[in-house]
């Protein structure tokens, strides 16, 4: 468990990358974990090919939820929405580089949940 606060995680928590909001954005979505009060909002701008050209996250919560959002933003630079839909739990855990119990797993996965729901939402809109 000591690993949970390894330097890279604390660094992302204290100095989050891509923190803020995009207005206007092509995709905006937010969700929370009511049980612990973690909240994440993600804004994306995508080009005509579906590539992420800009992204930002905002919100509040524990170090794990906020650091994983920051890391995820860094990782999706230039990726397509199709690629984003392929992201899994293991990708997040690899980024964090730690193992998590069931309670903290929810904190870690919140940003991925927000991102994926956002990505799928825009797809439905395109198909319409």
């Amino acid at each position: 468990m000591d690993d949970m606060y390894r330097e890279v995680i604390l660094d992302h928590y204290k100095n989050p990358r891509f923190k803020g909001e995009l207005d206007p954005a092509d995709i905006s979505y937010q969700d929370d974990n009511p049980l612990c009060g973690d909240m994440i909002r993600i804004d994306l701008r995508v080009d005509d090919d579906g590539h992420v050209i800009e992204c930002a996250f905002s919100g509040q919560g524990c170090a794990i939820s906020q650091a994983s959002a920051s890391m995820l933003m860094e990782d999706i630079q230039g990726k397509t929405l199709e690629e984003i839909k392929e992201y899994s739990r293991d990708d997040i855990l690899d980024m964090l580089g730690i193992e998590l119990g069931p309670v903290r797993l929810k904190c870690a996965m919140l940003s991925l949940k927000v991102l994926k729901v956002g990505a799928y939402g825009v797809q439905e809109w395109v198909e319409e």
Partner: protein
Amino acid sequence: MTELFDAKRIKEDFPALKRNVKEGVSLVYLDTTATSQKPFEVLNVLADYYSNYNANVHRGIHTLAEEATAAYENARRIISEFINAGNVNEIIYVRNTTEAINLVAKTWGMKNLSEGDRIILTEMEHHSNLVPWQMLASSMGLNIDIIPVTDNGLLDLQVYDELLDKEPKAVCVTHMSNVLGTLNPIKSMAAKAHEHGAMILVDGAQSAPHMVVDVQDLDVDFFAFSAHKMCGPTGVGILWGKYDLLDAMPPFLGGGDMIKRVYLREFDTNDLPYKFEAGTPAIGEAIGMGAAVTYLNAIGMDNIWKHEQEIVAYAMNRLEEVPGIKMYGPDAERRGGVVAFTLKGVHPHDISQVLDIDGVAVRAGHHCAMPLHDRYDLVATARASFYLYNTHDDVDKLIDGLYKVKTLFK
């Protein structure tokens, strides 16, 4: 601390408190408000029941069944004396405090309330004393009034007086807040409720384990508490109610033991307390609860209360020293052994996780009191809670751990 009370010695009675969380890191257990640890005296009684006289209670005519029944009913007597019930048959075994409150809402509530009636709850209730009433209110069309919590963590009793003028039928209130530690003035609240013709139910989950409770002196109508928070096993708790009220209530769950006689299309309800004890109960656990009460009685509830008062005052003083700590609730004199706090810039989950590295177990979250956290504009707090087995040394380890959190997150 008086020499009569030796928490360090008491700690020896609890095997879980001797374990290491990991190699070289001993456990500092500060989460009793969620559930207490169990002493050998209780564990041995559980093992003895399951090893030597495991049998279903009542009706059995063989040695084991008779021994089990005698032990089960003896525990009821011990628990009855513990809260000074007027009649042992007012002691109903349930699963826990939550089930006790649901039982009253579903039976007393359904029988005695009707559309448009008002009930009073408070802003500091555990979800278990909110949700059963919310469910009842939505199914019956009741109005819920709320006694607010003041900035310093007390019930606003002026509002209580005003709400009583609206002629409520019931007042449901916690004896002690599981977050703020606030000890509510139940005796005077009960007297006022009765003056206005209202029933009063008290959630005693956090008071019965820590202080002398005399239900006749408090003069409440229902009092609910759980074994697992007072050195006993999980799976058993008590609903106490005044005999005439319980007797007039319809049964809760239907099945074995709660009947006197069953026909194909109807049944005759059993007498108290069995009317509310359908199905095979948690027999070993009820006997274990009796053993827990016997254990606590031997130490003395007054001594336990004094010890906790002393240790919570010490903890609050030490927490005060830590820059960035904010505590919630009243002064030490008006609370039990619970302190909820936040640390500036660090989520309570992270506080708890970092403390765990050094074996310090506190709880982080909303502690099943979301409305109370909303009232303080918080999503979560960290909570340290104390019991008869906690020492100054435990508090010091908490403080050391908090400085470590601060270093990590600075």
